[in-house]
């Protein structure tokens, strides 16, 4: 198939400070002008460092593909989209795009608070590159999609933030370019509306439109994109099927894997407790970070106690890749199936290992991070803890063949428990 986007050695250099400083003034320039010869005379190096936001990135996209762009913060994802949408210009390399382009780097670009919803639809549409005719013909659809109804003739400054986002996204969702660049814009709005937008975008891609999709949300990347590219420190380091790339991305995070252990000196903790290691186990003794949704798994924490008689409270938190804390678990008796032997018992000095079993069919498929906390029963009320460390590990819950046979996507909600259902036939009417 025909290549619609071809990127060759695309690079973008910033001078350090260029992005950070708010603006220059003549005075600064004059100061620099005076300083420069003085610095040169003293043999000082003039402090000018180059920073490559993007370096020699090459890839191509075929017509109709939906490509995910993933990477950590500052990896160059947004710079790539800005270059491709001509907002800023490359320092080197080139890119060719064969088709009409729209980019969506922000929801509600160009909205004016004083104007009515109706007027903003036209304004924002025009800024995003739609013609008046296009907006006219889609106007009713946009209004319906946005669910703002009677507020159409109210200035948007009176909207709730939810309404504002919905209206803004409704305009954007009705763009009909051949190539669409989307930055992390779906991170806003409530879940139901996000889903609606994702579905709309999914439909758009079925119509043969090409999409480049930047997101931190691995769930939506894997739902939308067959292929992805991975950026790290301005370089393209991997390209391929989305599941593989997501795995590489997860692997890229230093804190990540099925187990982590620390040198004594670097171990998180204080003079009372230090954590030695944390592991995720798919059965009693096998570290694994790809976990079957239908099987129990274990989070194991090994730690030293240095103070004779302390009463420790080990605790884990699971966070999904949208940053939502799924739950907090510790060994307080009211939240344990059976009492932990070492709960509320003065601990001798030495090494301890606490394991928490997480039941099958609780978490839904996706990526999760483990946060660890070790508290002290004595300090429970003032919420003081010896150890507090986020995202020490990550794992993936895989639902290989269950739900997908029966349902077109994952279900709404943060967990997906297996529950009892019973339906009865009650009468003929």
């Amino acid at each position: 198939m025909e290549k619609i986007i071809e990127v060759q050695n695309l690079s973008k250099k910033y001078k350090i400070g260029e992005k950070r400083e708010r603006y220059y003034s003549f005075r600064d320039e004059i100061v620099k002008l005076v300083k420069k010869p003085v610095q040169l005379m003293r043999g000082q190096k003039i402090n000018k460092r180059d920073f490559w936001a993007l370096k020699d990135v090459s890839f191509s996209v075929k017509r109709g593909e939906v490509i995910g762009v993933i990477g950590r913060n500052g990896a160059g994802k947004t710079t790539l989209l800005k270059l491709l949408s001509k907002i800023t210009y490359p320092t080197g390399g080139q890119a060719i795009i064969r088709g009409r382009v729209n980019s969506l780097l922000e929801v509600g670009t160009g909205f004016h608070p004083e104007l009515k919803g109706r007027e903003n639809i036209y304004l924002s549409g025009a800024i995003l590159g739609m013609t008046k005719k296009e907006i006219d013909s889609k106007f009713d659809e946009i209004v319906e999609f946005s669910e703002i109804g009677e507020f159409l003739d109210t200035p948007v400054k009176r909207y709730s933030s939810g309404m504002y986002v919905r209206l803004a996204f409704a305009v954007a969702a009705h763009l009909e370019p051949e190539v669409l660049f989307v930055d992390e814009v779906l991170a806003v709005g409530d879940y139901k509306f996000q889903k609606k937008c994702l579905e709309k975008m999914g439909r758009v891609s079925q119509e043969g439109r090409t999409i480049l999709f930047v997101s931190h949300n691995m769930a939506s990347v894997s739902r939308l994109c067959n292929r992805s590219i991975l950026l790290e420190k301005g370089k393209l380091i991997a390209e391929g099927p989305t599941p593989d790339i997501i795995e590489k991305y997860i692997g890229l995070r230093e804190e990540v894997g099925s187990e982590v252990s620390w040198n004594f000196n670097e171990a998180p903790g204080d003079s009372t407790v230090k954590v030695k290691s944390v592991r995720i186990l798919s059965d009693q003794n096998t570290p694994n970070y790809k976990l079957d949704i239908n099987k129990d798994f274990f989070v194991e924490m090994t730690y030293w106690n240095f103070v004779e008689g302390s009463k420790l409270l080990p605790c884990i938190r699971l966070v999904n890749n949208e940053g939502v804390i799924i739950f907090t678990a510790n060994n307080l008796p009211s939240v344990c199936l059976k009492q932990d032997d070492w709960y509320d018992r003065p601990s001798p000095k030495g090494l301890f290992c606490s394991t928490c079993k997480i039941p099958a069919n609780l978490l839904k498929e996706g990526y999760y991070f483990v946060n660890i906390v070790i508290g002290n029963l004595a300090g429970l009320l003032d919420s003081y803890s010896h150890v507090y460390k986020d995202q020490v590990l990550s794992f993936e819950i895989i639902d290989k063949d269950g739900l997908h046979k029966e349902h077109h996507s994952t279900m709404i909600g943060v967990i997906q428990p297996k529950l009892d259902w019973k339906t009865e036939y009650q009468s003929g009417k």
Partner: protein
Amino acid sequence: MIEIKIKPNEGFLNIDLKELWRFRELFYFLSLRDIKVRYKQTSIGVIWAVLQPFLTMIIFSIFFGRVAGISVKEIPYPIFVYSGLLFWNYFSNSLSSASNSLVAEQNIIQKVYFPKIIIPLASTLVFFLDFVFSFIVFIGLMFYYHFFPTLTGILLIIPALIITFLSFSGLSLVFSSVNVKYRDVRYALPFFIQLLVFLTPVIYPASILGKHQWLLYLNPMSGVIETMRIGLLGVGTINWLAFGSSALLSILLFLLGLLYFKRSERFFADII
């Protein structure tokens, strides 16, 4: 099919007119926004457009006409100064608004691509509207003082507007892009405009300078204001040389502005 090439360097002065034409509706919507927003929360709305030059006329008449005693033969001072303010206000309001426009729209510039020249130009349409309203008042003043325009004067309105447009556009294209990098412009500009009003025959006739008048005509607005005053009030003879040099200067200013804008435009999103 459209093919977009993204490369480090484009041609020296490469203005894509086709692209500008495609974005003409954006120009319209941005202008419309400015016009609507301007009158949205004012209680007397459009009257402001008329009140501003009218009150300035009264104040100038008192201070320059009476106190300073600038005398203009055959023309009462109020209508004399109003005829100058007519074009001057269009020029100066547009200049200051357009020069700040890029900074004001920095959010859009960083998020969406479109020919950026639309921003400063679209921000001035609202002042053209003001011009139209204050012109209506001018017609009223002409009836009141019994002045009748010459045919040449009427025919010259459009060329004079074009010269005014080219002058403030050229200047503001430079100022607005310098403003992106050096915010000093925002503070220096009102001062500059205040000085410029004294270097333009708004409150006094050019003849006051005698044989040094030509110095005044280095400012393209001088030719416009002098010529239109003579043409519309039908008093005196038009200095065609002055008008012609205004036209020429305004074209040069516009080209200079365009050139400078095109050269700096590519980096707006990086430094704004």
